[in-house]
């Protein structure tokens, strides 16, 4: 009998896997199961062009909805999986339907961390992960309205930029010293803070929300340091966590997401994970990393599909993503948590620079501000894991393609 391929998570990773299975001409059924009602779509526009009404939802779709049926991919949308029976090998949905599988991919992504602050259940407090979330925020957006953005990670920073660009009054509250402090450190973080201030965001660092005030709707945000910001609505971007609740009792090993090896395999035969939910062993960095970005979802989903087909593929792409804020194109590649040397090419107080994070003279990661070409060229150096001469990286007259990898 032809094998049943089941994918839980009608996400970019899930869709990429389904498309890859069909492109490979696999015999057997391919079923894509998703909690959201929409056909799989890409999330990057939700905090940027889509939020600002500059891009349609259709343009964010991975494929037009009709594509799936036309290519023999059964979609089961709007219903989340509730459990996996790994002995009898079926997926059960919250409505009780069961889907037997021979090969299973888990691509459920993340869910937003919930605010636990006093007043967090007031109306007008939003988070952003799905298109439904984006639509709720869009409905709040009109010039002059006052928004408070809680958290200046990638989502918070992008939302703050989009709201300002559309003429809203924006206050952003972030517990760290700068936006994106944990990833980028103070030098780059300060520059991003300045970018937001120049564009008129009221930035509040090293402070957190004590409470949300209001009757039914939020009317003000009060901080631990005692500041009070009147507002019409709030967008919280306080991070996400892997969506693994449905795996309780399944025997599938989780630890900061679903633990998989370099082939995207879980601890159980025939069960794989990819995308934001997968804590994947990365052979270049020789450790597990979980990446919550577009390229990883697309490429790791495809790699997992090849492995499901019995064509072994080690997934070793260098993680890479972009974050567009105002007229800045930020890009990051690699993986780092700490660094012993920061090497900057260009002026970090200007609008175009590359910052490389090194350990033991090797580049672990880099961020580019309006320097996508430099970043592309550094990815090769990150992958090579060879020591580099930091003076040559910093020297603008050096062609980064000429540095030995």
């Amino acid at each position, binding site marked *: 009998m032809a094998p049943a391929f089941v994918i839980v998570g009608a996400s970019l990773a899930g869709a990429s896997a389904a498309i890859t299975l069909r492109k490979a001409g696999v015999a057997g059924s391919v079923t894509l199961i998703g909690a959201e009602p929409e056909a799989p779509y890409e999330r990057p526009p939700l905090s940027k*062009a889509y939020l600002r009404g500059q891009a349609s939802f259709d343009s964010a779709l991975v494929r037009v909805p009709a594509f799936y049926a036309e290519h023999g991919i059964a979609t089961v949308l709007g219903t989340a999986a509730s459990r996996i029976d790994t002995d009898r090998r079926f997926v059960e949905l919250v409505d009780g339907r069961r889907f037997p599988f021979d090969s299973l991919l888990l691509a459920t992504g993340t869910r937003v961390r919930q605010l636990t602050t006093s007043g967090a259940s007031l109306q007008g407090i939003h988070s952003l992960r799905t298109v439904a979330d984006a639509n709720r925020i869009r409905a709040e957006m009109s010039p002059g309205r006052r928004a408070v953005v809680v958290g200046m990670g990638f989502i918070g920073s992008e939302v703050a930029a989009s709201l300002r660009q559309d003429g809203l009054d924006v206050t952003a509250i972030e517990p760290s010293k700068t936006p994106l402090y944990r990833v980028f450190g103070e030098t780059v973080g300060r520059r991003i803070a300045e970018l937001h201030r120049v564009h008129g965001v009221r930035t509040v660092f090293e402070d957190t929300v004590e409470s949300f005030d209001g009757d039914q709707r939020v009317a003000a945000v009060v901080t631990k340091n005692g500041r009070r910001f009147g507002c019409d609505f709030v967008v919280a971007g306080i991070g996400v966590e892997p969506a693994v609740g449905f795996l309780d009792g399944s025997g599938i090993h989780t630890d900061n997401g679903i633990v998989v090896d370099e082939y995207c395999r879980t601890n159980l035969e025939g069960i794989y994970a990819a995308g934001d939910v997968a804590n994947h062993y990365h052979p270049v960095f020789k450790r597990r990393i979980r990446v919550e970005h577009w390229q990883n979802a697309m490429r790791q989903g495809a790699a997992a599909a090849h492995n499901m087909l019995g064509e072994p593929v080690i997934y070793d792409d260098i993680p890479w993503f972009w974050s*567009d804020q105002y007229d800045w194109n930020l890009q990051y590649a690699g993986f780092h948590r700490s660094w012993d040397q920061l090497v900057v090419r260009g002026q970090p107080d200007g609008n175009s620079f590359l910052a490389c994070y090194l350990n033991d003279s090797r580049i672990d990661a880099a961020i580019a501000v309006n320097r996508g070409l430099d970043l592309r060229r550094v990815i090769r150096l990150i992958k090579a894991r060879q020591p580099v001469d930091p003076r040559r990286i910093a020297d603008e007259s050096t062609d980064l393609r000429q540095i030995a990898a």
Partner: protein
Amino acid sequence: MPFETATSTKASAIRPGALARIDIGGARIAVANVDGVFYAFDDACTHEQCSLAEGDLEGAKVICACHGAEFDVRTGDVLAPPATEPLRVYPVRVADDILHIEV
């Protein structure tokens, strides 16, 4: 009806493997030199309108520096996302070292 424009750009000014941007009337056109053969196409990436002339050229593949979309400069076909729409391409002719582009 398309008509050919003699640009003020010398073909010899664009080395093999290089990209250049040429404005023709109101149109932003990018030109690629692929091993001595010139190809012209819209400079604006179909994904989010970044300048492709500021991207990378690898063989006949242009790579957008902003978000990594890839196109075949000979046909305009999308080779890698996030772009989904093909690029418009334009015929190019070189006469006396001057690029002529049919826009």
